[in-house]
């Protein structure tokens, strides 16, 4: 095992290369630039290709093209670049071409604040493609080590589900320095539960079968299989069609290949939830404060628990069936995750604790938990009225 002290950015690169990524195309943007820089240094050593694209639109399209030719590919960005991925993301999703997308969230809207963490793309990561009719996989690391692990998993899932997989990180995860353990042998990789999936070539002719099965190889060009893929609605062979029934089959596959195999995707950590009156909910860096708050709250005799989402989409409704008061902690002022928790936890009270740019403190979260317990209206400087 190699132990180094490095950033989430470096961890993502090592995860990608371990998973077999050989193409990275990107456009510099704070705070994801170091991912590009690391890939520029590392990829040529692995016979891979680093490209500085003319913009983010090109970056993901280049990755899509490389993947279409059989190479595993990844790109990385932050908010203003992420929105430019929409076009290429939709193409990969509908054509069912594996690709991995990293978004290190900063403070928005738009350019906002560049070098501070935000969580404003929770819903955008679910709905980045226009037109609906799909499900998508989004993972959220909370540490440098987990940035490595989830990048490996993102490639694994993208191959098995033949779909783009998004890693929704935040600036603190990608810029933060921590100890990172990297496997040096197959045995070590197995002990770390790291799984890889080799690219396979679909032999044709039915590239788009009406099934919710996974492990169907994607279209790979250059093997004379008659591979055909496009952004139009495909027939079984991948030809363009305007037929409603064929469209229904296509949409059904895009939705249910994901929903029928959630056991491969769903992931979360729960702390002391069994008897909890108040359950804190978060993903990414804020979840680390939540964990400490649960420990300290328990020490003080509070019946407090915590849920950390590791996979964000498809949303894990089942985690929110306990009767309790939920307090959702996010790095934004508008409350995004809280809306989904509210929907999933119907019948329970759901509250929101938001801030942008910097983390809450354990003290603040516990004070809020006490207020909820006492049935008081939540009130903070910038949050005069409880709306959730």
């Amino acid at each position, binding site marked *: 095992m190699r132990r180094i002290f490095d950033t989430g950015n470096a961890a993502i690169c090592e995860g990608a290369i371990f998973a077999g990524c050989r193409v990275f195309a990107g456009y510099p943007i704070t705070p994801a630039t170091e991912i590009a820089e690391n890939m520029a240094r590392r990829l040529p050593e692995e016979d891979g*290709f680093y490209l500085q694209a003319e913009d983010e*639109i090109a970056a993901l399209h*280049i990755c899509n093209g490389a993947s*279409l030719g059989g190479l595993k590919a990844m790109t990385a960005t932050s908010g203003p670049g992420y929105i430019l991925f929409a076009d290429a993301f939709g193409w990969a999703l509908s054509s069912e071409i594996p690709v991995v997308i990293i978004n290190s969230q900063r403070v928005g809207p738009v350019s906002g604040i560049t070098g501070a963490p935000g969580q404003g793309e929770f819903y955008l990561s679910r709905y980045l493609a226009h037109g609906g009719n799909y499900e998508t996989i989004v993972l959220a690391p909370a540490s440098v080590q987990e940035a490595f692990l989830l990048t490996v998993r993102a490639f694994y899932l993208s191959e098995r589900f033949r779909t783009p997989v998004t890693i929704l990180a935040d600036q603190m995860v990608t810029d933060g320095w921590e100890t990172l353990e990297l496997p040096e042998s197959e045995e070590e990789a197995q002990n770390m539960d790291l799984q890889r999936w080799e690219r396979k070539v679909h032999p044709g002719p039915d590239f788009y079968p009406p099934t919710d099965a996974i492990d169907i190889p994607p279209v790979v060009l250059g093997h004379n299989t008659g591979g*055909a893929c496009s*952004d139009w609605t495909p027939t079984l062979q991948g030809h363009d069609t305007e037929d409603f029934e064929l469209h229904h089959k296509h949409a059904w596959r895009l939705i249910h290949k994901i929903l029928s195999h959630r056991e491969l995707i769903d992931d979360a950590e729960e702390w002391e939830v069994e008897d909890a009156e108040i359950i804190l909910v978060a993903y990414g860096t804020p979840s680390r404060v939540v964990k400490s708050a649960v420990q300290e709250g328990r020490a003080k005799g509070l019946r407090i628990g915590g849920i950390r989402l590791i996979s964000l989409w498809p949303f894990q409704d089942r985690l929110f069936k306990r009767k309790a008061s939920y307090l959702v902690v996010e790095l934004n002022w508008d409350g995004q995750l809280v809306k989904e928790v509210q929907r999933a936890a119907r019948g329970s009270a759901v509250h929101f604790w938001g801030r942008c740019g910097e983390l809450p403190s354990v003290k603040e979260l516990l004070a809020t938990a006490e207020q909820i317990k006492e049935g008081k209206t939540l009130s903070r400087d910038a949050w005069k009225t409880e709306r959730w």
Partner: protein
Amino acid sequence: MTELTTKYLRDEKARGTSCPGCGLRPAHLKVLEAIDRLGISQADIVWGTGIGCSGRQTYATWKGDTFAGTHGRVYAMATGLRLALPPNKKIILTVGDGDAYTIGLQHLLNCARRNVGVTVVVLDNLGYQSTGGQYSITTPEGSVTDSSPRGTWEQNWAGSGLDILNVIKEAGATFIARHTVLQGDAVVSSLEKAIQNPGFSLVQIVYPCVSHFGVQALGTRNIPQVYTWFESYPLATGILQDSIGSRPEFSDAFRQQNKKVKKGNQDV
């Protein structure tokens, strides 16, 4: 069905989607003819397309491997694809004038700059015709279209002394030609050269849209009359740039560069 279509096109798509009398299908066949003359096998060509009339006509017609990109982005996709394919595989892209010269220009120019080994065939119908006939930057100045009811007045890249192909030339394209589809053998021979170029080639084929350009801009649905106008197409045609071999091909240069990196690491 001709011998060419039976040989190269998928049965169910061989008829094409273009309107009767349109010059798009003859232009499509010119590309097949060039491939046939060069004797390149089906397995050695990957055929990509954009959208619009040209995309609908050509997508998934090729019996071998084929794809369609999002509007204007197929040049970026081809850049990535080029890295994954062995050098002997040719990439041919059939796209429209709007795709190449407006929405996709940024990616087209960068593809030319990198000298990516692709052949871009711009099937130019002088406007946005699949959406009913709106002007594009190749529409002759003054033309009446659905979005220029009083005639186009903006300066464009096919008039006012400006030519989009000069821009592409300056971007570094190593082979550029322009023809009307009426120019028969010359079109095929330019396409042959383009496909043989290991680097970036662009061949613009201007063809008559009878349903919209004919009716709106030329005021006639009469097919021979529409074709007559194209006989005196005003811009320069023929081979406009041939510097094949003057610059390294992109994926080739990339592999060389990677070799140097690995060697450098070993030397250290």
